[in-house]
């Protein structure tokens, strides 16, 4: 997986490849019963309440923690080119489907070569704060702020910067 944070364009871009044909990967991204099997990083679970995969349609779903906490999100489909691309607007929401703005714009691309499918996702965020919140959403693990750690961190941040230049 390639993961690049480009602060100049406020975009996170993620590229990965699957050993499966494009039809299958497309289905896994666009059918709720399949999405719910992989969308939430374990031990969280994804539960789709509503999903209409069409332009103007939406997916309203929750990430559910092992102790039952629910974090709702809405994804609204902006454009769809079957098997190739779809774009959506993503926002956190409350349980009554009221979005919390600002959200982020996602652009997902699918291409197949030699039976493998490459997925490229770019996520545009209006603010870094939003991105921070996305992660603060229950996935944190404690990190000791020792000087050793700080050194590693700086090396990593510097590499991250080099990657995108």
């Amino acid at each position: 997986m390639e993961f690049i944070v480009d602060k100049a364009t406020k975009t996170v871009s993620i590229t990965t490849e699957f050993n499966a044909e494009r039809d299958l990967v497309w289905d896994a991204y666009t059918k709720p019963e399949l999405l719910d099997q992989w969308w939430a990083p374990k031990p969280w679970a994804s539960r789709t309440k509503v999903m209409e995969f069409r332009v103007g349609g939406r997916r309203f779903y929750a990430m559910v923690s092992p102790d039952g906490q629910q974090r709702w999100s809405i994804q609204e489909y902006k454009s769809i080119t079957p098997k190739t691309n779809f774009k959506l607007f993503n926002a956190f929401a409350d349980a009554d489907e009221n979005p919390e703005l600002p959200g982020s714009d996602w652009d997902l691309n699918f291409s197949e070569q030699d039976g493998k499918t490459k997925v490229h996702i770019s996520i545009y965020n209006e603010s870094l704060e939003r991105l921070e919140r996305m992660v603060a959403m229950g996935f944190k693990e404690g990190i000791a702020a020792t000087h050793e750690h700080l050194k590693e961190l700086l090396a990593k941040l510097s590499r991250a910067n080099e990657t995108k230049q």
Partner: protein
Amino acid sequence: MRRDVFQAIADPTRRAIIALIAMQAMTPNALAEHFDTTRQAVSKHLKILTECELVRQEHQGREIYYSLEVQKMKEIDEWMEQYRKIWETRFEQLGEVLKVMKKLKK
């Protein structure tokens, strides 16, 4: 003006300043001794770091001491790393789902 934290850490001198003040609070003069640049240049870097809330200033008599906002650095690290991990886990899970789908198709 609130700046982008990634802009703050994009510069090698600023990263070196962060590493130095992580050890102890320092004045701009003391910091400048570690670099081949002018005090003015160091002050400019400190200004950017301050605007990003990565460092804080403390006045002691006539001197201003700069120290690191460790919490802020931790936050940057956490969200970048955790966000990457979320996607990594997601894709591992998707890989498994696809395996099953392939079998079912045959």
